[in-house]
């Protein structure tokens, strides 16, 4: 997400350094957005008795947002009103608007379960620490993957492929993205319902 901004920054300043500076700002914004969405769930996990309903609600939330993105197909044009110098803010806003951060919630909760962070016998303090740690880890891995992929693409376009690639490679993935949100939500929901005794 946002790799063309890194290409633009690199070309405008005629320096690879500007490209990497832009990628850095993009990752910071994205990271803050994912943490902002994950942290409330990390805190909620302390409520051991409410594990299942929390997970089910999270799945429903992701499904609902996916449906909303599928039905309301208008792109938020206000993103273009963020000054080009504020890339971190832009990256933060776009991660929230697209639901990229939200998509991580079911995955995160699933991971917490797999690592038994939601076991009822742990003290609340320890549990909190562990779930926060997991939230940070999930966000970092996610952002690293995103910036790794986007950064490689930005570098390839900047150095080898040329600007023609920007418009030629750009497909409208809105519907696919919205569908994938729904799929993640449905998978998590099915898994949680099947295990809810």
């Amino acid at each position, binding site marked *: 997400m946002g790799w063309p901004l890194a290409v*633009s920054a690199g070309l405008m300043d005629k320096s690879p350094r500007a490209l990497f500076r832009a990628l850095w700002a993009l990752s910071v914004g994205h990271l803050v957005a994912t943490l902002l969405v994950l942290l409330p769930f990390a805190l909620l996990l302390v409520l051991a008795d409410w594990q299942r309903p929390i997970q089910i609600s999270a799945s429903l939330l992701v499904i609902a947002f996916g449906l909303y993105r599928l039905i309301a197909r208008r792109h938020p*044009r206000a993103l*273009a009103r963020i*000054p080009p110098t504020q890339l971190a803010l832009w990256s933060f806003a776009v991660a929230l608007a697209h639901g990229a951060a939200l998509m991580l919630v079911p995955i995160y909760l699933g991971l917490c379960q797999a690592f038994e962070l939601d076991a009822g016998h742990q003290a609340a303090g320890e549990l909190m620490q562990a779930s926060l740690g997991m939230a940070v880890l999930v966000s970092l891995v996610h952002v690293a993957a995103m910036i790794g992929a986007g950064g490689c693409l930005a570098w390839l376009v900047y150095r080898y492929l040329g*600007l023609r690639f920007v*418009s030629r490679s750009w497909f409208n993935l809105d519907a696919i993205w919205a569908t994938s949100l729904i799929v993640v939500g449905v998978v998590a929901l099915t898994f949680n319902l099947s295990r809810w005794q």
Partner: protein
Amino acid sequence: MTMRPDPTFHASPKLAMEAPAENFAYTLLLSPDFSKPDALAVIDVKPGSPTYSQIVHTVTMPNKGDEFHHFGWNACSSALSPLAGHAFIERRYLIIPGLRSSRIYIIDTRPDPTKAKIHKIIEPEEVFKKTGYSRPHTIHCGPDGIYVSTLGGGGKDGTNGPPGVFIMDCETFEVLGRWEIDRGPQTLHYDFWWNLPRDYMVTSEWALPPQFENGIVPEDLLSNKYGHRLHFWDLRARRNVQTIDLGANHQMALEVRPAHDPVREYGFVGVVVDTTNLEASIWTWWREGGKFHAEKTATIPPEPAPKEQLPPLLQGFGAVPPLVTDIDLSMDDQFLYVSCWGTGEMRQYDVSDPRKPKLAGSVHIGGIARRTPHPNGKAFAAGPQMVEISRDGRRVYWTNSLYSTWDDQFYPDGVPGVEVMANAGGNGGLELDKDYFVSFPDGYRAHQIRLEGGDCSTDSFCYPSV
């Protein structure tokens, strides 16, 4: 909503130059006495076509008295802005404002320009109600919507509050509201353009409606009451950050032409007339050290003429002022074309050194005193006015009407609508094309031209040419 960006969107000016040439030219027609509805003419400009240089389709409006002037697209290369992150719209609709009526027409040019039709009409009341502005003028497609500059504020004569810029949605064409948050000292308006990645806008000044709707007001001109300032804005903060006064004698600073390559932080503006000596001038503006600067970089002198060859308005001066009424910059930022509507000349300046324009080519056609005919022998009333350059820079089109009431003052014998084209050499040089001459139907004058797939005053680019 499309699956791919429109193929006529280009990331950089260089890519726009390399794209296929235009097959059609859209031209606005106005009925100067308001007796007929205004219209949009679609002209075949494909070399070798059996209908080359002919009108192949006309869209006639349902109202009279709109006074068509400038127009633009709903979307252009600015849709590839990496900040918008969503280029899935089409360059499909022409947005045509009525400068006199404040009505806005949306014309659908798909699937075929020869079948263009009215898609939507925005009534003046909606513009008044949602913006408090009137007399919509310049159209530019931005990454977050369509920007429209206006020449009038509120009230019947448009003097209730200052004019400004408003935004429309590029898909629903809903008028969204005013753009400015802080206009600073800006009280007049005309043209505007921007540098998207560098985040600034430049606006210029013509006049308020009472100073142009019923013709030029000589007393106002001689007391320097027409516009003579440039305003520079923080584009996304929507604030006026700097105003440069070109000097009160430099009356009417009109078209603003920034370099197309966003790395280049300079541009040009034309001044119609210097009231101390009747000269017209070209100014270069640029940004350096966080501040904007402007200086006069070329002047065009008036030409002496006997009284009997002059309209009553000019008889006291004994000379024809050049009257630079439009300028346009080629896509590679190398050549600036300058319309001298009074003396009847189209000038081509080499502006590769932007602060030292060099005259590289010129053709004479029309003119108040010269009255040079077209190389094909036909008469050309008035002089070169709205000029548009093909993206590859090889064809330069222009028409001959300035504005209904002003035409009558400077050219009382009438201004039958004509469009011509000149071929430009790769390294300069300009020559009128003998085969391209469009005569518009009786009773119509012609104003701005737009070329299929974008031209040199429609698209803004977010990536430099590399």
